[in-house]
């Protein structure tokens, strides 16, 4: 009762709908970034093909993942480069 009055006077009452809105905005963004495995594998193969034109890479040691932070999402592709391919004249 007293704390209720206090809250009313200080205007500290937290609005649950604000939290609902924030949580929705985040989850909708994440929902859209959800990529299924086949898409990821296809993407990885395509990236490897392109990079292989210029570098010789270690196909075993590479890694592709979707990294998510509070504010940003990124596609991270890690690969050890064995050596640069010489361009054929």
């Amino acid at each position: 009762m007293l704390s209720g009055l206090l809250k009313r006077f200080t205007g500290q009452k937290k609005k649950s709908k604000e939290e609902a809105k924030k949580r929705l905005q985040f989850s909708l963004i994440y929902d859209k970034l959800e990529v299924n495995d086949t898409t990821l594998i296809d993407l990885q193969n395509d990236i490897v093909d392109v990079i292989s034109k210029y570098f010789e890479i270690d196909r075993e040691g590479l890694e592709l993942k979707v990294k998510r932070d509070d504010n940003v999402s990124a596609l991270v592709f890690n690969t050890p480069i064995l050596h640069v391919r010489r361009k054929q004249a």
Partner: protein
Amino acid sequence: MEGKIIVVTSGKGGVGKTTATSSIGAALALEGNRVAIVDMDIGLRNLDVVMGLENRIVFNIVDVVLERCKIEQATIRDRRIDNLFLIPASQSDNKDVLTTAGVERVAKELRKQFDYVIMDSPAGIERGFENSIVSANEALVVCTPDVSAVRDADRVIGILYSRSLTPKLIVNRIEPARVRRGEMLSHEDVVEVLAIELAGLVPMDDKVLISSNTGTPLVLQNDSKAGQAFRRIARRLNGEENVPIVVPTDKTNMWSKISRTFGLK
């Protein structure tokens, strides 16, 4: 001229899709259109009881699509509202019994016979949903102001866009007092989160349950706020300009003032 097929969908169940479909269909008929409402929720039919037509079912949409009867045989005429018809769902068939091609063929025929064909989609995003949207020219997404309904609406909106449909949103069961207290998402919040155009706002209304109890059309009740909101939605869909989207308010006198201004009471 060919009629329009409008699909009413939501993703989540229990947000008032069936009420919205029957009310908008009835309201479009009151505006002078020939309207067919089609229950696409195969195996879980409900539109017939909500509309009070459950005792008159002989054939259903599955019979029509599988060519076991003609469209006219499965069409039930509403006796209270002129030019309003229902094609009920089947209660016994498996929900995957219909093919997209079959539904498309029937939809094409329905467009020739009616000004508006309103498809009540089942909840979910499976086959039944796909069948409901395949022939649609327009789409309405119904959601309530809560996190699960909004999230599901977003998913459905995404799928509709991928089929070249630009859906409009109906926010249903708005409780103005709770919105004012910050306990409920406002329609502005929902629209901002979903980034979608509004078709209309419908307040929480005890009369909805009562009218479904008796199977009487909500839109015929002039004292039903929800019924009147659906009538305005139908008038806008029907191409009428200057029909305002009224934001539900809990100030009763204010509401009656607005209603009186537009000659509804």
